[in-house]
């Protein structure tokens, strides 16, 4: 039986190596995703251009402006002179934010009278605007603390925020686990559903079923090469994350691999399930894209935080295996926890896998009849 299996796996590798589309998905996509998420889609920003409308024009306001620029996040694009000019920068798309410093700024500041400055942002890009406001608020706060060091205001409350496990708030810490989860899903679920659908479309599945090969060997033979490849690719994404973006792997590497294996099985049974429901490659492709890729990208908490979603979308998010796998990855990779801390997530994923395997088996049997 093992010899037959070997013949099968060899054939499958021929298919993979001779199909440009598969090769591109296998090797091009992981690299592209890491690079795109790493360099293009990032929540951090550097040298964002801002405008300043300074009514005060004194030393303190100048110090504030310098302080804002000192972080490297902002550079001043233009010093405005009147409110009429305010929108020019936005409309030209040059500046993303305007700081308005009132005339009595330094007087209020030193009188401890809660000086107010106005921050105006471009609301057509709300995510970006939010982040910018947070950053600038932080800068202003730190400026205030710096200036009022001694006993002048003993009752001032200072918030000291510390981001555990990701002190620099690097977005790579978020996207590397996400990309690993997505790539495993694409390779194991989408590609396997495509390759099985292809056998059905070409009529070769019929011939295999008439052969003495047990159906289970046919399926395992078809998915094994993809499981092996996806494992290698998941490893290289982790490696790329580590080398290029210094995303650490704090927890046990063995546990991490074990979890990847569990998720690979989940994805493979999803792929097989889709293929038993679709008789053409096109249908398999559409089904995987619509029912797997989209929800996994949008609702798993990978791109958008789940807590800010409407309840119903959160529920949908909870039945997506990717969500649980990303949680597990983050826990093991970044927080370095052992299995006892992720029992719930692992349990859910195992349960999903068992249900999926059962559904796949049933659907496959019905198909045979």
């Amino acid at each position, binding site marked *: 039986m093992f010899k037959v299996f070997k*013949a*099968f796996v060899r054939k499958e590798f021929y298919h993979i190596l001779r199909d440009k589309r598969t090769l591109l998905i296998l090797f091009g996509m992981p690299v592209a995703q890491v690079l795109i998420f790493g360099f293009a889609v990032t929540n951090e920003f550097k040298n964002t251009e801002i405008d300043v409308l300074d009514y005060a024009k004194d030393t303190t306001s100048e110090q504030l402006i310098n302080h804002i620029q000192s972080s490297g996040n902002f550079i001043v694009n233009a010093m405005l002179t009147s409110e009429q000019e305010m929108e020019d920068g936005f409309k030209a798309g040059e500046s993303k934010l305007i700081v308005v410093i009132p005339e009595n700024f330094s007087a209020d500041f030193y009188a401890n009278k809660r000086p107010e400055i106005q921050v105006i942002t471009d609301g057509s890009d709300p995510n970006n605007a939010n982040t910018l406001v947070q950053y600038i608020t932080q800068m202003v706060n730190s400026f205030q603390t710096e200036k009022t060091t001694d006993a002048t205001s003993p009752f001032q409350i200072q918030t000291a925020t510390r981001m555990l496990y990701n002190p620099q708030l690097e977005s790579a810490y978020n996207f590397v686990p996400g990309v690993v989860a997505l790539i495993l899903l694409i390779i194991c679920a989408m590609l396997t559903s495509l390759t099985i659908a292809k056998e059905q479309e*070409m*009529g*070769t599945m*019929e011939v295999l079923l008439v052969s003495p090969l047990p159906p289970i060997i046919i399926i395992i033979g078809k998915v094994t090469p993809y499981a092996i490849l996806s494992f290698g690719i998941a490893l290289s994404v982790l490696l790329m994350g580590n080398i290029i973006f210094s995303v650490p792997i704090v927890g046990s590497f063995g546990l991490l691999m074990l979890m990847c294996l569990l998720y690979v099985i989940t994805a493979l049974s999803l792929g097989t399930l889709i293929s038993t429901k679709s008789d053409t490659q096109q249908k398999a492709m559409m089904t995987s894209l619509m029912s797997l890729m989209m929800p996994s990208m949008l609702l798993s908490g990978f791109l958008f935080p789940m807590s800010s979603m409407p309840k119903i979308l959160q529920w949908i998010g909870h039945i997506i295996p990717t969500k649980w796998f990303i949680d597990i990855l983050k826990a093991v990779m970044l927080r370095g926890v052992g299995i006892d801390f992720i029992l719930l997530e692992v349990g859910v994923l195992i349960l999903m896998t068992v249900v999926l395997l059962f559904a796949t088996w049933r659907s496959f049997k019905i198909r045979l009849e």
Partner: protein
Amino acid sequence: MSREKVITVQDLTKKFGDFTAVDAITFDVYEGEIFGFLGANGAGKTTAMKMLNGLSKPTSGSGTVAGLDVIKETEKIKERIGYMSQKFSLYEDLSVVENIQFYGGVYGLSRKRIKEKTEEILTELNLKDVAKKLVKSLPLGWKQRLAFAISMVHDPAIVFMDEPTGGVDPKVRRQFWEAIYEASKKGRTIFVTTHYMDEAEYCDRVSIMVDGKIEALDTPDKLKEQFNAETMDEVFLKLVRN
């Protein structure tokens, strides 16, 4: 006839819920015979064939294929039969040799046997020059004959063919039938479904299925006599209209 029966079927029936796809069919097929299995689409040909191939369990009735029971010994039957589907069932992105090797492997042939078989098929079909070419680059007629040869890679007693000449031009079809005769001469039994009535004339015996039942079964000549018809096409039309 004194020849040995390789397929015997007694009241074989397949029901899907209330629908009876195959309704108590009974027939025998003899060794070395080319047995034509005719019927319109949806007449139950494919379902009947699936039961003989061990893919589908009969609801009732009994039968044997190559001396093996179609209900209890389906796995053994699969080792003794060859199958060629209407889509030629080759992997287009594999070379001629790789296809032979793969199917040889699927049927559990030893490495030595696979080598011999490869050599044999390449010589017989005159494919030595294109042995390493991908199957998709071959003309349709070649692919079809290669698929036929590969379906016999494990020397089965019977080859089942599901409309093997669908979508092929008449000249290629005639060539293909020559290959079928060749195999039959070597004692191989051929069980072939088709809806080309001119092809029915090439068969030793023909059965015609209508609505799940076998309505006629005999040699093409006797059938034409029985239905007072010039061609098999007429026989078929007369049967279906009644």
